[in-house]
């Protein structure tokens, strides 16, 4: 019994961390219409940043700053934000293809750099020497994992509430206005490029937070964790859940992660041994088909964006306040 519960906690922790990432992507795509083809680069920047800043000194690579954990996590988020700021600054003034290609490129280059630059982050062997916070007090067992899950869940709730407030705020209205009609927004004296950049960086910082938590959870990160696969998975979660709807984004994360884990388990259990090599291929065909199928038959996702009439007094959000 304890085995099942401890597995459920493990599953829910991973799914919640991914849900935070999906929320970050939702701010970029769902609310602002920015295609981020390199989710994993910002996720990875958060993970690598956190582990390098918070880790113990290592002979082989950079690290050993031994920052207090919250500071290390914030450092990882800043790393993701800076990366997004550079990419955004160069591409957000251009037509939308450029952002898609540049972000995709940043993810390829990030993985490539982490795999090769041994002196920076351990190369293919990954970042070692990170101690999970409060490990001395709580040990490595079930208690620790349960507590970590609670912390992740609290952060997920925090990010959710923050984004809900943001989307309902004048800034959120501005984001949707630019998404729907850039010319109209510009004619009202708004600067689409700057607002887009803000949203892109903010979304990437949230992706960085998810990455930092992911790195903390495993106390390890390697180039294997920042493969383009993760970008696909996080995108599938958002599309299935419903772009533009934060609750849908969270449910999509749990649903897709559940389906992914279950299909992996089923294939390893029931598929013949000689076919095991192809488990990954089958899973990718499935996730690709889910993405395309959703776009064709239910592009709004399982939980569509709720349309809000943004006029003072008539919006359900402002009533009764």
């Amino acid at each position, binding site marked *: 019994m304890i085995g099942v519960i401890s597995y459920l906690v493990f599953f829910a922790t991973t799914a919640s961390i991914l849900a935070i990432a999906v929320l970050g992507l939702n701010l970029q795509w769902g609310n602002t219409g920015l295609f981020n083809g390199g989710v994993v680069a910002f996720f990875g920047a958060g993970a690598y940043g956190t582990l390098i800043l918070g880790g113990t000194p290592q002979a082989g690579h950079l690290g050993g700053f031994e920052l207090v954990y919250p500071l290390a996590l914030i450092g990882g988020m800043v790393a993701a934000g800076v990366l997004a700021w550079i990419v955004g600054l160069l591409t957000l003034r251009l037509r939308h293809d450029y952002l898609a290609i540049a972000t995709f490129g940043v993810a390829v280059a990030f993985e490539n750099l982490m795999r090769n630059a041994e002196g920076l982050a351990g190369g293919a062997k990954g970042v070692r020497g990170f101690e999970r916070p409060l490990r001395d007090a709580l040990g490595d067992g079930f208690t620790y994992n349960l507590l970590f899950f609670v912390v992740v869940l609290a952060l997920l709730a925090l990010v959710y509430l923050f984004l809900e407030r943001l989307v309902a705020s004048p800034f959120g209205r501005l984001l949707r206005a630019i998404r729907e009609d850039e010319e109209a927004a510009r004619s009202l004296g708004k600067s689409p490029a700057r607002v887009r950049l803000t949203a892109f960086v903010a979304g990437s910082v949230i992706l960085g937070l998810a990455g930092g938590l992911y790195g903390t959870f495993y106390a390890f990160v390697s180039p294997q964790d920042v493969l383009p696969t993760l970008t696909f998975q996080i995108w599938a979660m958002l599309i299935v859940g419903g772009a533009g709807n934060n609750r849908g984004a969270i449910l999509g994360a749990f649903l897709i992660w559940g389906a992914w884990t279950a299909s992996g388990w089923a294939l390893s259990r029931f598929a013949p041994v000689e076919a095991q090599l192809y488990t990954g*291929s089958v899973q990718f065909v499935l996730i690709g088909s889910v993405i395309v199928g959703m*776009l064709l038959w239910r592009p709004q996702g399982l939980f569509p964006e709720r349309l809000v009439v943004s006029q003072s007094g008539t919006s359900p959000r402002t009533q009764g306040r």
Partner: protein
Amino acid sequence: MIQNLLDGVLTGSYLSLGAIGLTLVMHILRFANFSHAELLSLGAYAALVCDALVTALVPVFATKLGPLSLTWALALAIVVSMAVTGVSAVILDRLVFRRVREKGQELSMVFASFGMALVIRNLIGLVFGLSPQLYSKDIAFAVVLSRDPLILVKPDQVFVLVAALVLMLALHLVLTRTTFGFSLRAVAENPTLAAVNGVNLRRTVMAVWLIGGGLAAVAGVFYGLSHQLIPVMGRDLVLPIFAATIVGGIGSVYGAVLGGFIVGIAANMALIVLPAGYTPSVPFLLILVVLILRPHGLFGEARA
């Protein structure tokens, strides 16, 4: 140094072929097609199948063309594969991209192509297996052009370069000398105005996919001739091809040709200063440089 330059030109010849189709699609349908590189894999594997079929049915065709490792069967297979890949691209458009387009979600096109790339790449892996394959198991010997500095060229590489240049010239003639070429450029310029003037939009879009798919097939086979066939080759090719279109300016066919050669040469020249492991990052660095210095590429123009 000269060897690197030479290798770069040869890499450039298949990148250019891939980039031409991509830039046309991006210009006319206005979305970054992440599945274009999968058309290269599709073409390469279609040629592999066709080559095996022809060799089995008509053994005479298994003879080689002069010093090349290319056989008559493979030459025929390339032509068939161009047709197969072109038609597949049209079918792909009908099944997925046109439907998404007609729902009016321009931005979703990028994402649909992301998903399709994943599906095609892994289906190829499931059908053909994950291990690398070759068109010819014979070792193609390189000809020594010069001993000091050592410069080696394989006859196949020269063939690839010449064939690529011939195809580009043919496309140039079609675009500048035929009514079809004019209507194609008109649609790229302004679809509505072109339609008013009697250009059939659907047929033009179909032609773009046919041309793009056909050239991608050739590019894929040429990649297979110089390297090997692996199901994930699209993953390694997508960024260099995108880089070529950005360097040349999205929408410019001549830009894509030049961009392909620039990316190919840069990736091979980078080997002189960077360890080989960093090669996959070179196209991205090139994209960054272009975006800083000349955001719309060498021949591109600003367009919303």
